[in-house]
């Protein structure tokens, strides 16, 4: 027996004895492309870290909109 990571992810559509190849019903915080080598062999998801040190709004309240704007440079 040789089993690989279920690269096709969650599958709950078939009977439990007919679980499709490379799928699973038991998954959490894993992804098919791992963060160590970026290969399709499966592993833990990447972590979430702060991208900016500033806290938007200065309080523990959610950021409700995030977007970008392009601005012309005056030469």
């Amino acid at each position, binding site marked *: *027996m040789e*089993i*690989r*990571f*279920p*690269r*096709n*992810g*969650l599958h709950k*559509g078939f009977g*439990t*004895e007919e*679980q499709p190849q490379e799928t*699973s*019903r*038991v*998954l*959490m*915080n*894993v*992804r*098919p*492309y*791992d*963060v*160590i080598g*970026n290969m399709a*062999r*499966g*592993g*833990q*998801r*990447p*972590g*979430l*870290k*702060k*991208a*900016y040190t*500033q*806290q*938007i*709004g*200065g*309080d*523990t*309240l*959610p*950021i*409700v*909109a*995030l*977007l*970008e*704007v*392009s*601005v*012309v*440079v*005056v030469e």
Partner: protein
Amino acid sequence: MIFVTGDRDAGNARTVWAYEDDGTPAWYYDTADATYKCVADAYNNVFIVGKKGDDGDGDKNLWKLNQAGTKVNSLYVQDEAVVYDVVLDEDGNVFIAKGTATATYQATKISPDFSTETEFAAGNLNTGNAIMASAIDGHIYEGSGGFADDFRKFDKDSLSTELFDEDESETCYGIAELSDGNVLAAMGENLYCYANDGSGEVWHYAFGAAYTNTRVVVDSDDNIYVSFNKYLARLDSDGNEIWKTTHADVLYGVAVAFDDSIIVCGARTGGYTVWDVTVATGALVDFIDTGTIARGVCGTGTVAAGGAIADSRKFTKKLVAIGNREVWYESTPGTMTELAAATGTLNTSAALMATEAAQKVFIVNGTTKKVVDFGNTKIATNDILLAPGTAIPTRGQKLTGGTSGALMIVDLITASDGACSVYGFRYSTATFATGETVTGTGGVSFVLNANEVAPPHYYNWITYAADTTTYGSVPEKITGVALYAGRILAWGHPPYEWYATRQMNPWDFNNGATDDARALFASNTSALRIGDTVVTAIPYKDDICVWGCANSLWCLIGNPAAGGTIQELDLTCGLLSANAHAWDNKENLFLITTSGLLVVPRGFGPPENLTEVRYPQFISDLAFDASIHRLTLTYDRQHNGLIICRTVLATGESTAWWFDLRSNGLFPEQYPNDCGMFSSHYYAAISPDYRKTLIGCNDGYIREYAAATKNDTLFDDTTQAIDSYVGLGPIPMSPKSGEGQLSNLHATLAGGLSGGGDDSSSVGFQVYAEDTAEEVISKMVNGSAPKAGGTFTGPGRMRGNKHTQKVRGSFAGVKLRNDTASQTWAFEKLTGDVKPTGRAK
């Protein structure tokens, strides 16, 4: 470079002088007699005309010298004693205006290699003094002198077709053109502006006396500089005099040089023959001395040898985040700064949406409608209509600071009379200053009450000049906005209604116009009515916009004001949330709808449901309730997948999925409540360091997925381990539903290369074996007590990793798990021995 022509200096035999842009001498050339005018091409080749001279190659009156001052070619054009003017067309043809000693006609076309000469077959037996090849209409304008038909327009190709003529009975010495195609003729007593279509004079500027050798040039902003005798004047494009200065001696030439600077030349005074013009005042700054009368000057851009490669980018980008009733923006790359003017003006507990358009962010928040303007400079006046006869600036109009010379293109004015702020794009380096009079064409004139204010600005979204009669009104209440084909789409009040601004004008909501760019609202256009409650608009390229509604999906195709139609995309499902859509890098559109995760393939084929087979209960398990949840769908360009996240508004608790577009697999995820996702955006920053998928989180911090980060970072910078697991199986233990035995489990984890690469941490495992597959799955899900377990030690395939313990059952499952802080893992394969043992009990 700068090139100067002039009288021959007997002491230093020179008639052509070349300088670097800063006035450093480059080279000289001697044509053997006086030269009059010159013109340079894009390669710094210079073409010179003047009195015939023998530079050792026989009599010539046209010379082409390269940027090193070496003669490339020369010609004795029709044996003329004097050639007065020379220009080039875009094909490199040379056109000259010449005297009439032996020729009948005043203008000649010469091929780029000087091999052919063709006289214009029209003439009036007077001296041709000036010529211009229009960069706008491609025709040739020629000025001659003194009698009938002293200014004429010719067809460039036929050379015989005179398109129009003007007779001022004055000699024409200089010609230029404005950006609107109207042409300027500097004559003896006046500067005339003629309509390009031959309909005659538009305006004229009187010199006050008769002069010779008048000249005119126009800079890239349509400022006109005209020299006449000892005078130099700057006019606006309507012929209004901005200043007029008097020089000590006669000026013979004026030119636009490098970087739109203005230079003039003339009789030698004070040890100089060429001066740099201070464009704001007309003051002449000593610049170059050729030693003798300078009769012509021209300039070109300079390509610096061996210089650094300039940044070709003409724009930058800023990240904008909204939270806790505040707007923050990226003031410098990597640093977010609060926009103080916005503080407390938004209700971030209510529906809020924002879109970028025209260097601004338009924010709608119910009855609050705001603009964050990052592109415009603000100037202000106490009275935009200063006096009777003045006018308010129109959108797109150029304004000029009377003292500073600062230039602005108007975008928005806030009032049509009295106190007014003017927002516009300043494109000059000069800045607007308090007290100066700002003018524009059509009688625009007002006085500034403060120095200009740099962006960003924060103001109410209004229509132009707050003139509701002409421009309509911004809808009273808006819950969503999007940019589509140059229009801002707005919707939400009433829920089935949507509005569109005029194309390229977010300040115009007047739907009473009839042109194709007009503003509109859906209910007054039968082809645009939907009827369903609008959730959001999803623009796609320039002519398609998907309308996600509560119970249906629609597609707007084309210009809604010119034949555009609304067509059904799917009438069986609706969009769950305004943020529940994303485009991938292959132009597929993903939507979380009432029937599942849909993909609308590139080209708008039939939608495909990605969850109905693999996860039929996806929507019911999602249990999205807009009153208590936030639902976002994000395309992560870095990892090529979709992030689906349902966040509880009150707590930040998240239920998330990663849909990997490479394997087409759905993978559940969980994040700490601090990291609960409320907004997301792939930030295509200028700097690669900041170019990433960003998450607007529950705790007010912006986060990113980082491959090298093995934990989730919390509000207080502490970390939380990621609890990750996968269940392998169920594994049938016998081919005929009998029992079997599983043993000798061995896992190969990632890494273990000698001398390099990142390694997998160890992974715990639990082995389940039961009579049914469902039981195995249930126990793996619930974390029930396994029949066997242990740890596969990483990295790679370690000795001692084989676990020989045997388990029996009809189905087996192996759950791999790691919930240790600062660890991550990856997995190559699991091997084991399965041996049927007989019939099931």
